[in-house]
Every structure is written in C-alpha cells, then in structure tokens.
C-alpha cells in the first residue's frame, strides 16, 4: 500500500507551520507501514494528466503576500485545469487559508482590488479593509456530518467530531448557497465571524482557515484524509497511540 501526496508550493507557502500537515501525514502512515511518496509541485513543475492520476492526496497551505503573488500567476496559468479536474473527479485534498481563498470565485483585498480565483469552490472572500480587525485566535468547531458520516471517518478515535486550531485571516469568506461547510464554529470566527460556518467540504476536498497546523491536534482528521485517499474504511487503518495528542486536543477545547 502506498500513499502519494502532491505537495503544492512547499517553499512558497510555508507560513504558520502548515508544512507540519505533510510531516504528520507521512509520520502517521509510516507508523502503520504504509509507504509514502511526497511529490513537490512548485513553479517549475509541469503537470500533466498522467502525473495527477498518480496522486492520492493534494495539500496546499498559505503564504506571505509576496510569495502568494508569485504562486498565483503560476497556479492560474499552468496548474488550474489539472487541479480542477482532480477535485471534480473526487480527488482528496486539503487547502489551508490562502490557498482555500484562491480556490473560490474571487478575493477582494483590503485596497479594494479584486483577484480572480480558480472558481472550483463555490465561495468568495472579501477583506473589509485594514480598519477592520483580523480574525485571529483559537478556534473550536464541530466537523459537519458530511465528514463524520463518511465510512472513512474514524468514530472510535476518542476525539469525536471536534476540531481545534488557530485562525489568522483578514478576509471574510461567504459560501455559495449550494456549498456545505467543513465545520460549525463553537468558538472563534471561522469563515466570516457571522454565519457560524468554517471552511468548505466539496466532493472529497476540504478548505479551511485552521492552522495549528490543523492536523497536529486533530489526528482523526488526518486519518480520515489518509483512509479516504487510500479508499479504505476507517477500520482499514491500524489504531495509533494518540494519548498525548488527546491531552493537547482536550486542553485546546478550553483555550480562549
């Protein structure tokens, strides 16, 4: 058994420890003797259908403004159609913060200028201007039933459906009417601080604002992604000793 991860723009989008997500996926597979290949996809990488058909899981994080500009040009010109086909055909992927926003219809920045998104996710993001406070802080939320009801989601993990992390974003995201959220906010802002939604769950892809990195204290989400990518039921993955992580998760449930 082998998990093949497509790791987009590792060197450009390396803010907030999000690279830890891939480290965690690799570590949890290795503990179960599942081989992992990580394919880095950068500015120079030429994608093709054959390459994408060999990918089981896509990860993409967020980055500083300067590298996001560089990445944006490359993403929209040479990667967009492959990523769209991958997601529409049910490929598993995780997008955090900056990349989550870019997969929507558009991003209106603080100065009023608008950046066209890939339009894969039915959502749009607007920055209310630099006088508005950023959405910053610890987050607690509950994953939506579209995730926890999936046969690949581990119910016996001891973590239930709760999710903890840290958010730090200026833009407010609004989901389209047909989109379903990734999670429901218990504490924090989430997509926009108003409608109680956090992230998006579309086909087998997840977009989220959560850092931490998001998989660090949510191993049930990490295992869901692994099982889903390998097309296994949750029972198909050996149980790991996550006692230490459960402590960290439970403490984070009470952080304000």
């Amino acid at each position, binding site marked *: 058994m082998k998990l093949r991860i497509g790791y987009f723009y590792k060197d450009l989008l390396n*803010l907030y*420890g999000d690279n830890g997500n891939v480290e965690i996926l690799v570590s949890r597979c290795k503990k179960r003797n599942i081989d992992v290949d990580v394919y880095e996809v950068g500015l120079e990488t030429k994608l093709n259908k054959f390459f994408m058909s060999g990918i089981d899981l896509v990860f993409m994080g967020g980055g500083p403004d300067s590298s996001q500009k560089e990445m944006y040009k490359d993403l929209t010109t040479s990667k967009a159609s492959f990523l769209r086909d991958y997601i529409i055909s049910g490929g598993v992927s995780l997008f955090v913060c900056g990349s989550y926003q870019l997969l929507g219809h558009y991003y209106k920045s603080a100065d009023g200028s608008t950046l066209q998104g890939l339009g894969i996710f039915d959502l749009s993001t607007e920055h209310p201007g630099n006088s508005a406070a950023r959405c*910053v802080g610890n987050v607690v939320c509950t994953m939506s039933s579209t995730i926890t009801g999936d046969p690949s989601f581990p119910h016996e993990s001891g973590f239930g459906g709760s999710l903890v992390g*840290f958010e730090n974003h200026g833009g407010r995201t609004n989901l389209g009417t047909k989109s379903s959220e990734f999670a429901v906010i218990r504490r924090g802002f989430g997509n926009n601080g108003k409608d109680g939604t956090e992230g998006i769950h579309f086909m087998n892809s997840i977009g989220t604002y959560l850092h931490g*990195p998001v998989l*660090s*204290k949510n191993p049930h989400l990490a295992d869901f992604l692994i099982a889903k990518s390998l097309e296994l039921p949750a029972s198909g993955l050996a149980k790991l000793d996550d006692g*230490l992580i459960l402590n*960290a998760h439970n403490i*984070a449930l009470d952080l304000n």
Partner: protein
Amino acid sequence: MRFALSKFIVLIIFNLSTRLGIGSGYVWPGHVVLKLFPSILSFKQLQCRKGYILISGTNGKTTTAKLITHILEQSGYKVLNNKTGANLLNGLVTTILLADIGSVDYCVLEIDEFTLPRFLEYIDPKAIALLNLSRDQLDRYGETDIVLDRWQQSIRKLPPSVRIYADSAEPRFKTLSADMHFFDDSSERLSLTSLKGSFNAKNINAATKLVQDLGIPLTGILSSLDSFESAYGRGEQIDFFNKKYHLYLAKNPASFTHNLDLLEHFSPDNTDVLIILNDNIPDGRDVSWIYDIDPTAIKDKLAMFNGLYISGTRCYDMAVRLQYAGCSIDMSKVNPLIGEVVRQVLPKSKAEHVLVLPNYSAMLDFRKLLLGRKIL
C-alpha cells in the same frame, strides 16, 4: 515645562507601579506620557551627547545591545541601555525619561521590529544594526515582508549620515540604504567570549563593527569581549539545588533551531533538557510555529537526550510536536506546572546540567522561580 512634567509623571508612575508590582514598571509611565504628549520623542531635550544607537531584528537584539553597551562602557563612555528588554514605544519613552539623558554619551536601545519605524519618525540615530527577520508572533505582526516594507520606508527618510549595519547573508537587507555596512558569522571573536553558536558570532561581529566605526580601538573591543557576561535568559547560567541551569531563550523557529545546535556542547549522560512553551500575550497566542522547527534537527540533536522534560501552558502541544519529529516522550516528564517540574520531577534525575529552552514569558516565569525575580 512639558519635558519636566513628562519626567515627573514617569517617575511617579514608575515608582508606584514598581511598588505595587504592576507589570514590569516600564510600560505604564511611557504609555501615559505618550497619551499626554504624543510627540514627546521629538522634544530636543531627549538628545544625548553622542547619539542614539538602535538594534532591531527578530533574534539577538538583547545580546547585541548588551555587547555594544559593555564595550562602550569599558571605553569610558556613559551609556543608557534598555536592558530589561522594554523595547516597545512606551518602554523606550520610560527608559529615556527616567535617565538624565543630557549627561548620557550613547543611548543604546533594542527596538521591537514594528516599533522601529515609529521611533525613527522622531529621532535620527547615529547608527542602526538590523540583525535578521524571521517568523515571530505572526498573530500580532503579520508577515516579515510587511516589517521589511516599513523599515524600507522609514530608513529612506533618514539623513544619509545614518549608518546601517546588516547581516551580509540576508539578501533582503542589501538595498535598505546607501550607507550599508555588513557583518557575517565568522567565529574568530566568538571564542573570546562565553557565548556560543553561530548566531552569537553574528551578534558579536555586528557589535564590533559598529563600535569600531565609533572610534573604539580594536584592542579595547577585544578585552571587553573577554569580560562580557551574557544577558538574562540568553545563555545565562543559574545554580539551583545542585543543578546548573543554562537558559537559552527559544521563542520562534529560528532561535529554537539555533539553540538545538548548542546541544552539541552538552553530554546526554549528564544533561537534561527542559523545554517550556507558554501562549501568553507576550509570546503570541499561536503556537503553530513549533512545526516550522526543522524536524530533522529535532531528531538528530534532541532525540538522544533521554532526560527530556516539557512544561508551560502548551506543554502538550510541544510534546506532540517533538513526538512527531521522532523523540520518545515520557508522560511523567510532561507537566504544565513549571514549579512542580523543578521541585518534584527534575530532582529525581542525576544529571548536573539542565539546558532550558523557554519562550519569552516562560523564561520570565522560570527566572522568577529560581531567582525570585523576573528580570534583572
């Protein structure tokens, strides 16, 4: 009149807050004065005899400012230095107004990266040392690009006579000003001091180059380096109940990774490692930076230390991070209460040395525990 009133206010509030134990004593006096006189820093009574020397950057500010201060003092100058690390605008104002600034030769100030541009609006320094810029407290500051952009804008407005000293390995610093001077990490002077690590070699070279240009002869500099004692929490050694605690502030990925290099100087048989991670306001509430520490460095340098103790409000986050990087974690050595770790857990170990890697508020808490006081 306004200057005298400001000095009076600062003195009263400083004495009050120190006596009542509110904050570090440096925050409120400057805060109040800045509310009353927002342009206080432009008062010409704030000038010192030979000029201001400013040190900014993510890591190494306190050590570099202390090096410059020490060398200048050894050369006979009267120096004002904000040695407690009060490096935001309010702390700087307090530091300056509490001193008899007119009789000071050099005012050597470490300044928070984001505060530097605001300070430069009012005061033209003699020289600025810019050490580095890396990820630190993003939940407060945003990204390093934003900091760099603000530096560039404010430095452009300075008179051309202001000398800028910067790390030669940092390409983003190359074009900050027309009068750039560079330092590197060559280690020939490091061995003259009790400091360790290539990051401290850079701090020493920055300080040396800067004071040489102020006219201090090299022989004087070298003998000053020999008598230099490290700043609190930055290579400081504290003896406590038969153990030697070596404190190295580790508050962001860069300083944590640098400090992992120091483990080479300690024997795993006789050394325990204590990592303390807090998420208080001065630290930033976001601890996700611990995943920006290179996991290979953790595995290669830390995993061989059996005595690995973890404390602080976010000790479990740190324990999980180190476990993912390949360290084996003993749950009995993970405890959020630092007092319990020092009094009850660590005494069970025979190791004589404890290398302590705390982040900022953790370092202050730890010093308070061992020394009964937080800062100097």
